[in-house]
């Protein structure tokens, strides 16, 4: 009997250590918090930065923030907001509208009007989009310099006659995303030789450009490494892309006047150049999204 007890203690010791590891840490802050807000971001670095910007500002104001960064595409993040799994995500006005209205094509180049229209749909989900920022990041379509020279490509319309000879690469959500394949086909009549599913403006897309697996690819207009990769962005001459201005989308339950004030203040001060700069810090210098956000907030005196 005693013999069994001794090794039994052994197992209990291991289990205890494991439980301690699991249980320790993660204690809540001592000051009474205003409640918890779950902040999510899409699966690309800029979204992590924006989520951190909004989240840290709210945290500074007394809210407890839980982050769910790199959560996925809009089709994962938006439903999560609809079902209350998350409370806030940094959206892009036109793209959010075309998601919530099921690709009706109502987005325009006016961020305020677009956001207002967005809010008519968000109401039924107990959510609201706040003031759109002037910071803009929309889909952009790039080709390698070689391809651009070879076919003399400067605008997306230039692509129409030669698309059939080129391979296009984008992320898995592209076929159902208004400002991706559906828009390219309906506005520009582009029918590529082949469409490869890679990632949303991520490493696979860049690798594919590098070894010429694709000649045309989806990037974002605020990407900081386009020049160093030798990529040329084709101009959206027929204005397929609409007002993809940064706008925080939040559930009404967390949309207190206090929270709205904090968030709108961030959005008001944010510019497209800021996005470009911060993206560079994360993508090229491998700084943390949270560190970059913190620096930005400190420099703009949000923490004082």
């Amino acid at each position, binding site marked *: 009997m005693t013999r069994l007890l001794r090794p039994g203690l052994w197992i209990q010791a291991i289990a205890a250590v494991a439980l301690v590891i699991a249980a320790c840490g993660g204690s809540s802050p001592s000051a009474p918090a205003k409640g918890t807000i779950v902040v999510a971001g899409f699966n*690309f670095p800029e979204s992590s930065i924006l989520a951190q910007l909004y989240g840290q500002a709210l945290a500074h104001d007394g809210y407890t923030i839980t982050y769910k960064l790199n959560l996925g595409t809009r089709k994962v993040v938006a439903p999560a907001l609809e079902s209350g799994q998350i409370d806030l995500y940094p959206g892009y006005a036109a793209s959010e509208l075309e998601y919530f209205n099921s690709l009706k094509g109502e987005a325009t180049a006016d961020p305020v009007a677009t956001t207002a229209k967005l809010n008519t749909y968000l109401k039924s989900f107990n959510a609201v989009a706040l003031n759109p920022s002037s910071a803009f990041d929309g889909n952009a379509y790039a080709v390698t310099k070689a391809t651009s020279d070879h076919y003399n490509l400067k605008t997306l319309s230039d692509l129409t006659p030669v698309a059939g000879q080129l391979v296009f690469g984008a992320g898995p959500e592209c076929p159902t995303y208004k400002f991706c394949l559906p828009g390219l086909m309906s506005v520009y009549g582009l029918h590529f030789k082949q469409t490869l599913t890679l990632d949303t403006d991520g490493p696979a897309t860049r690798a594919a450009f590098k070894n010429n697996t694709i000649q045309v690819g989806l990037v974002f207009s605020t990407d900081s490494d386009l020049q160093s990769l030798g990529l040329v962005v084709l101009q959206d001459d027929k204005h397929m892309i609409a007002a993809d201005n940064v706008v925080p989308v939040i559930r009404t339950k967390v949309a207190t006047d206090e929270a709205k004030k904090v968030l709108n203040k961030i959005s008001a001060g944010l510019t497209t150049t800021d996005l470009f700069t911060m993206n560079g810090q*994360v993508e090229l210098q491998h700084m943390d999204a949270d560190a970059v956000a913190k620096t930005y907030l400190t420099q703009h005196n949000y923490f004082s």
Partner: protein
Amino acid sequence: MRTSLFLDAVDPWVNWDWLSNHVPYVLAAVQEHVTLTLIAVVAGLAISLPLGVLAHRWAGLRFPLLTVFGIFYTIPSLALFAFLIPYTGLGGTTAEIPLIGYNVLVLVRNVLVGLDGVPADVLDAADGMGYRPFARLVRVELPLALPAILAGLRVATVSTIGIVTITAVIGLGGLGQLILRGLIESFHTPLVVATVLSIFLALVADLALAGAQRFIVPWARPA
């Protein structure tokens, strides 16, 4: 076949600076990882022991039980996590259901093997000594089945630690979050650190359980 390290020299495989500045971040990920694993293994065992005992008693239960969980076992974890999101949300529940399900298959099989392997004459002797069925189970059969059960625990734990990394794709994942971040930002360090730590966790768990096995049943052949 040239292998091109197609990221800049700016990014060494492990940036020790980054690591030393991010110890809390990494430790938090390890903690989440251990928690998810513990819950999956303990719950799996808690479910498998009674199920295994029942299936051992009632032969008719054995085949359906193993088949149902066996089929569940062949479904890729990523698909299960993604499938469950609309029903169980983005939290631990969605992660745990598949993890526990996989562990139940592994552990039930091993509970059955363990119980099947108890020699008939030992059972006879126990009956002869006056053990009633439940007491016989708890004091004779299960202890003799321990080597197999512990072997199953080892397999379940190592498997779970690996699969937990995949839950990063639905917003959880402990160390998987570092892997995902390393992928999205083309950043080596969190990726390498997380992979190494995951291997380390699995090895420690495996060795600890193997050690416990040798302690508890020193007469048994190592699995």
